């Protein structure tokens, strides 16, 4: 059987060999990381964004690259997922977007800080993470029970797809903060809609719906879209979120 000094040799030898291997791989990784992470794209804005990220310990609620806390959404791909206009609106007043939901801290960032945070998150989103986060492999096998009752209208305008669906459902897909909009043309005229969307606060002070900056053309496009919706809310939509079933 092994003697104590042989056991000691095993310990010391193993430690030396594997530490050396680890240091060699570390050296090699440091050579490759700049290309994998687009180090050259780290602008001063990205650096400032990283500082804001650390100074506020955003990692204490969120994960980034899958690291951090499990209380709030993973943010690696958030710019791709939500789009910059939505993020700007959200970061200005995080609790307003989802009233009554799990709370984020109200940081009261100014425009410049918000731009920095978004620049940082955008840089993170472009790092080569070897496929993380993976595309949900079962997503295709899950279908919505609710039929796309309202999806018969025009294609969703960009602004609608990135901002409004966070709170409103159309065809059974979307948020639940505001009412589903499939049948909104039965309730509101074109003029009402224009006025409401342009400035909800002036019509109903204190409403959770924020004023969203948009051009005249964008406003018209959105209202055209809303008027084109078929006009009936899918029956199963009451709980508003699609219920998955399995094939």
């Amino acid at each position, binding site marked *: 059987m092994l003697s104590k000094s042989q056991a000691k040799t095993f310990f010391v030898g193993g430690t030396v060999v594997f530490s050396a291997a680890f240091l060699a791989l570390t050296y090699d990784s440091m050579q490759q990381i700049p290309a994998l992470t687009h180090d050259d794209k780290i602008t001063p804005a990205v650096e400032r964004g990283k500082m804001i990220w650390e100074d506020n310990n955003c990692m204490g609620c969120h994960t980034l690259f899958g690291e951090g806390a499990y209380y709030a959404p993973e943010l690696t791909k958030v710019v791709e997922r939500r789009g910059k206009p939505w993020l700007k609106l959200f970061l200005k007043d995080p609790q307003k977007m989802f009233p009554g939901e799990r709370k984020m801290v109200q940081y009261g960032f100014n425009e410049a800080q918000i731009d920095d945070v978004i620049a940082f998150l955008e*840089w993170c989103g472009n790092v080569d993470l070897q496929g993380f986060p993976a595309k949900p492999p079962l997503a295709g096998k899950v279908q919505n029970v609710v039929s796309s009752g309202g999806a018969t209208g025009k294609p969703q305008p960009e602004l609608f797809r990135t901002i409004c669906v966070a709170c409103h459902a159309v065809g059974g897909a979307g948020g639940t903060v505001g009412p589903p909009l499939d049948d909104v043309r039965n309730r509101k005229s074109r003029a009402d809609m224009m006025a409401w969307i342009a400035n909800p606060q002036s019509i109903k002070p204190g409403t959770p719906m924020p004023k969203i900056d948009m051009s005249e053309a964008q406003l018209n496009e959105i209202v055209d879209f809303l008027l084109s919706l078929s006009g009936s809310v899918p029956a199963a939509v009451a709980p508003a979120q699609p219920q998955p079933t399995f094939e």
Partner: protein
Amino acid sequence: MKYQSQKIAYWFFAAAMVLFSLQIVYGFIMGFARIGYDVLHDWIPFNTARAVHTNLLVVWLLCGFMGAAYYIIPEEVERDLEWPKLAWLQYFSLLIDGVIAVGCYHFNIWEGRKFLEIPRPLDYLVVVNVLMFIANIGVTMWKGKRSTTTSMVLFMGLLFAALLYLPGMVQVRNQTVDSFYRWWVVHLWVEGVWELIMGGMLCYLLIKLTGVDREVVEKWLYLIVGLTFLSGILGTGHHYYYIGTPRYWLIVGGVFSALEPLAFLGMAIYALAMAKRGERKHPNRIALTWSLGCAVMSFVGAGFLGMAHTLPQVNMYTHGTLVTAMHGHLAFWGAYAMIVLAMIAYALPLMTGRKLWDTPLASWAFWTSNIGMLGMTGALAVAGITQVNLERRMGLDFMLVQKEIQVHFIGMLLAAALFTVGIGMFIVMFFRHGLPNDEALGTDVAGDLVAVGK
């Protein structure tokens, strides 16, 4: 207890008990936030509670390790501590540092990196503090009458832990590089050098409690910590799968981290075998129960539950979900919290001269806390697996899934309440022992020699 200067250990242990209680309070704050009662949000938002929870954990464990070292080293090398006054200075500066850091978290002041939240200026204080500790222990060993493997392994663990803290302090502009070196602290601590500390403490306890020949115990200690480094160093790769590092880490990390459970399995088998083999029946049964419990639970929490998500194919979906939190709880509990509690259960009667080891309360504390912790782990496992399936595999929205799994946190809080009762009993036992005193000097007072039959 043989030496006057060993008494300082008591104060480290007492501080550990206080900080541990506070850690649990902040755990409950997060638990309640997760079931919708985020009532303290304006004063203690989740990220504050989390930083306090995990930092207090690390600090009380370090207090436990330091107390253990101040107790074990003089006894192993057969002389008093070199600078008892320095140990006191180190004690107070550590606590002050900790209190300032925790205070800062309540005012949004931190470094903002998971587990390394301590504001940077305080990092330097930590370094000075640890230097004082290492110097004191090191010189005591250097001047000691004998040198033992147990004390060497313990010392090396503490020294490497101090050195590895340094890479965690560098500030870089690239988030991937930032993460890369953060793991040198977090991973190489818990899956590397802390295992040396744990191994050294376990070895000491087994020698004292089972009476198995030191040569045999220490030979196994070398093999096990050898296995730890063999797998654990390159095993760091299991944190380098998906953070912007080269692809070969998927293979290196996958293979070597899959070997890591062997070290924990070895530790469990070795502890159980030694206990069976030992001819000595030390009257302090509860200390042996904690020691064996530690060996077994560390295998379950770190080895088995670590293995469950360490392969890259699995980790792709579990990375950064509650599955990680499940593993984190049982691993920290089994490996490090339990070894500190085992050490306390062993040393306290010897320092105070009160043999409270055979009371029902002592065994209730052990069983209640362990069953509670297993319940918490189970609840987190169900929540974590559900999250992985709904969010990561079916693609449902994060917040929607969080609502679905909220109910499991009620279960977790119930189990946590049970756990807290167990820890409460342990702490009551702790303070019932009274203070360390001179009557307890000389091992026979409290039974160590009686046990040997001398």
